[in-house]
């Protein structure tokens, strides 16, 4: 028997696939790009949802991982194009899967460093420290001129994936869509695993978790690193979507947006990030068409959601989450 939430999830996933297919058939590649944007943002927010939704770790610095993934794609592609060796005589590349691995590994390592220090604290300290570390990465990117500094870095030709014409919008969308589904599947597996139970238990009652012999710090650090990796992968895809990466991917507005996506969709819900990303991009597009002051109204809507509709879109559609 399909639960109401799973039904809503299924409809969401099907809609995200159907809309770009239809748009492509009707010769409207713009909507394909919009759907790709939704898929990538949803993947980034699913990564954050591991830390925030399951672990209760309100990271206000996930833009750091998103941007690092983006810069991994941009820097590797630049070196692949120019032929200059990157480091230790290793060349760059235009192969997406190599870029993804590098993005995930680098985001994971930076996540390990940031997490190791930030997780010594909790609550409001954690929020501010993750924010500060992300700003550190941001200012580094702005002041380091080798890869464009403030101006950012263009990727001249979208990177390649064996057997796929990545420059076709629909093909690139399908790549992102499959990765998003894998990411959501991974989230579901982690949530149901022993590790996921420990992570959620550490959120609910730290003392009890410690009492049964599990060290909350290690569990949280592991969760934080996996979360950083997934967001980093999304960053690499985002850079390829725009064929451009700049410090704005690292800015704290980006971190805020990622949290907003989760809240709009529903915290800790499997498809919350996707619902939130779809809603956010739709708002951005619809409001942006109506008024150039759309950010004001976005703020207003967000404020109303936070104050009065705490379950987010999935809370509205599928009822309360079954476990908190």
């Amino acid at each position, binding site marked *: 028997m399909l639960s109401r939430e799973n039904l809503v999830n299924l409809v969401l996933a099907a809609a995200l696939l159907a809309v770009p297919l239809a748009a492509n058939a009707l010769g409207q590649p713009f909507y394909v790009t919009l759907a790709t944007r939704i898929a990538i943002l949803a993947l980034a927010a699913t990564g954050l949802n591991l830390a*925030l939704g399951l672990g209760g770790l*309100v990271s*206000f610095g996930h833009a750091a991982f998103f941007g690092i993934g983006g810069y991994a794609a941009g820097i590797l592609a630049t070196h692949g194009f120019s032929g200059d060796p990157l480091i230790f005589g290793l060349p760059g590349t235009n192969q997406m899967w190599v870029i993804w691995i590098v993005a995930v590994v680098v985001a994971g390592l930076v996540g390990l460093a940031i997490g190791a*220090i930030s997780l*010594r*604290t909790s*609550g*409001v*300290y954690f*929020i*501010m*420290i993750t*924010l*500060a*570390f992300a*700003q*550190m990465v941001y*200012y*580094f990117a*702005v*002041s*380091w*001129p*080798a890869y464009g500094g403030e101006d950012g870095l263009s990727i001249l030709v979208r990177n390649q994936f064996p057997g796929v014409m990545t420059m076709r919008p629909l093909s690139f969308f399908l790549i992102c869509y499959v990765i998003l589904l894998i990411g959501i599947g991974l989230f579901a597996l982690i949530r149901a695993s022993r590790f996921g139970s420990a992570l959620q238990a550490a959120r609910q009652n730290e003392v009890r978790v410690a009492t049964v012999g599990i060290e909350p710090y290690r569990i949280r650090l592991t969760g934080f690193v996996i979360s950083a990796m997934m967001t980093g992968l999304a960053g690499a895809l985002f850079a390829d979507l725009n064929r451009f990466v700049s410090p704005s991917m690292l800015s*704290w507005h980006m971190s*805020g947006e990622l*949290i*907003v996506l989760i*809240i709009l969709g529903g*915290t800790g819900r499997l498809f919350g990030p996707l619902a939130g990303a779809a809603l956010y991009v739709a708002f951005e597009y619809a409001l942006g068409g109506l008024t150039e*002051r759309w*950010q*004001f109204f*976005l*703020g*207003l809507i*967000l*404020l109303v959601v*936070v*104050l009065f509709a*705490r379950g987010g879109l999935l809370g509205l559609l599928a009822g309360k989450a079954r476990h908190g």
Partner: protein
Amino acid sequence: MTVALALEQLLNGLQLGVMLFLMAAGLTLIFGVMGLINLAHGSLYMVGAFACAATAAWTGSFWIGLVASLIAAAAAGAIVELVVIRRLYDRDHLDQVLATFALILMFSEGMRWLFGSFPLYLDIPPLLQGAVPLPGGTEYPVYRLAIIAAGTLVAFGLYLLISGTRLGMRIRAGESDREMIGALGVDIRTLYTVVFALGAALAGFAGAMVGAIQSVQVGMGEPVLILAFVVIVIGGIGSIKGALLGALLVGVTDTMGRFLLPKLMALFVPPAQAGMIGGAAASMLIYIVMAVILAVKPRGLFPAAHA
């Protein structure tokens, strides 16, 4: 020559530190008394700067602008507290972050609506124009010295307010036990509004003072807000003393780092690279300092008793 330059940079660092203290004091006060994390504090700084620039342009007087900035920021703070913030005291930090993030979007876009996208400029008042000679032959602008003096005076006034007046006593009581002072008959809702407006006025004052040496534009509060977060994290959230020391530490470290690190690097690598590496390292310096302090003392230098 180099000594004079270093002295000048040190004064710049002090000036930045004093401004950061005005921001951080409000943030830490609001957190200490109400347990609220307010991202929109940078917006109140921006409101102060815009109010000062617009009023000064209209009346021709910086001083009237300064008064207007205090009134506008305090009023904006009080309104925001009454309409939005008071619904957030019982919520978790995540809701507070999101709601105040939403407020930033509204404030920034609203300011652009009112004043357009072009920056405003604010002239230094005639009384404070000019420069004073420093030992070593260079000169230092009077206005920056005035900022240091004004910030120090406000810090001292805040100390007197909190340690010596009835309002200060209530604020301190609110920090140590919220329910108890409510039970003792203090109107805690009004107290919260007053504290929030006070913090907003401090931010607005800082914005107005800095507005005369930078351009007044949308988004000007955000870099300052993040530095103020670093300050209160270093100092210990909720501690005014920590905010003062943290602000001076961050201000001086940041300014001196930008001045000295490229020179230091030049001893090891060619000048062109030294500027690049030194500049990048300097932009990260205060965050590294923060990380080191937190690795040793996770709750900051002067942890508040609760929180």
